[in-house]
């Protein structure tokens, strides 16, 4: 059953990824990206990472992509007109894709697969409790530093969006 769900979710993720770059309407690209996010969240769930699954849906699908949608919806239902002067990119991209797949193939040559770690207690793995414990003990400093980074970004965004001479 898990393998069936995996392939459905993986196919959805790939289809969404193709949709992001091939739709001519920005809003459809955004919605394709949402499909990718949700498909990825299903993959997290299959790996027993319940909390990451919900965080992926809430943060990426629920907040980040909604902000994208917010901006793009204001553009109206206009279609992007295909520009012909960048035609040479098509053949160039084919070349790059071939090179990329070559690299991937070369990289996967020496890979050996191993069995999942049987010593992990699956009853607490990926739960909110275990992630919270990890964040506030083992990973406390990286966690706090990241929050500082986000705070700086938020203050920066507020400062930059202020108009000149706006004292409010």
């Amino acid at each position, binding site marked *: 059953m898990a393998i069936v769900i995996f392939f459905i979710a993986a196919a959805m993720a790939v289809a969404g990824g193709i949709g992001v770059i091939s739709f001519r309407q920005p809003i459809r690209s955004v919605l394709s990206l949402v499909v990718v996010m949700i498909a990825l969240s299903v993959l997290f769930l299959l790996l027993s990472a319940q909390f990451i699954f919900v965080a992926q849906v*809430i943060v990426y699908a*629920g907040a980040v992509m909604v902000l994208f949608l917010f901006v793009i*919806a204001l553009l109206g*239902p206009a279609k992007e007109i295909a520009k012909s002067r960048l035609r040479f990119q098509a053949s160039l991209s084919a070349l790059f894709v071939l090179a990329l797949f070559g690299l991937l193939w070369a990289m996967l040559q020496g890979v050996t697969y191993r069995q999942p770690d049987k010593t992990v207690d699956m009853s607490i793995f990926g739960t*909110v409790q275990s992630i919270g414990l990890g964040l506030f003990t083992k990973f406390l400093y990286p966690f706090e530093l990241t929050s500082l980074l986000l705070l700086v970004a938020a203050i920066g965004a507020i400062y930059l969006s202020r108009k000149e001479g706006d004292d409010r």
Partner: protein
Amino acid sequence: MSGIYNDPIGHWVVVVVAIAILLFVVLTATAYTVWFERVALGHIQRRPGPNRVGPWGLMQLAADGVKLAFKESFVPAKTERTLFVVAPCIAVAAAFLAWAVIPIGLWYNVQYWIADINVGVLLVFALSSLNVYAIVIGGWASNNKYSLLGGLRSAAQLISYEMALGLALVPTFMIVGSLRLRDIVEYTVTWGPYHGPIPLILLTPIGFVIYLIAAVAETNRAPFDLPEAEQELIGGFLTEYSGLKFVMYYLAEYVNMITVSALAALLFFGGWYLWFVPPVLAFLLKIVLFLFLYIWLRGTFPRLRYDMLMRLGWKVLLPLAIVNVIVTGTILVASQG
């Protein structure tokens, strides 16, 4: 029962039957919520409300449903047809999926749920955040400026109040130490001679108030129904919708109302525990009281202006929720240390 659960095919049968029963119950409840709202609003406004179809107008919703189902499924010209149809489906799907994690106490020590997952309440939040798409996409695909503005307003409103809603529940999670709704309901205390479950509102009253306000805003209900403020936006994102697609949005709104009422009952009022009242009745009674509160609010308060709504969300509820988390944390640490 556990034998059936262990058998792989039996497990699927049980789950499918459970989902079917739940779907039927929630749909019926939705229909009668609409009836209840119309009658209660009628009495608040000193008029009888629907009373012609069936005894006390109880069949009104069946009549309305048949009428709406037989309406022409009209899609205006120059809309984005696919997205126009998909948007209401997202709304309904997100609304119903939330019921997968809501446990229902049927009798003493007999509970019913479809999925008892570790992240519990967070899944409801995840689904309610997906609900934004239904509204924004519906508004955008309608190719109507009022629809678009209604949709965007709603997106801004939902994002703003989602944070207050989430933070309002953090103290509850801190006290109970679990996000599982069943654990939250079963949370027991020993206070002197009393040992047993308590309504958590006693421990987080501020959290409850914030939850209550934010939940009304999250479900787009009056006095926070700005996405469809008719004086300014005609019908908001619903303007171009009619027939069954309109019904789907309508249905989603009422299912969401029942969901947040059920969550309030589970999170703050001890779910199915109420003195000597049988569990299922106690749970139902609490949900109905919350639904009545919703209707009461709608019949009593004028709609907020948009800037007032944003100010309330960001400058009052959010800071209050953060302070509430800090205070609760401090008290918890102090009482343990």
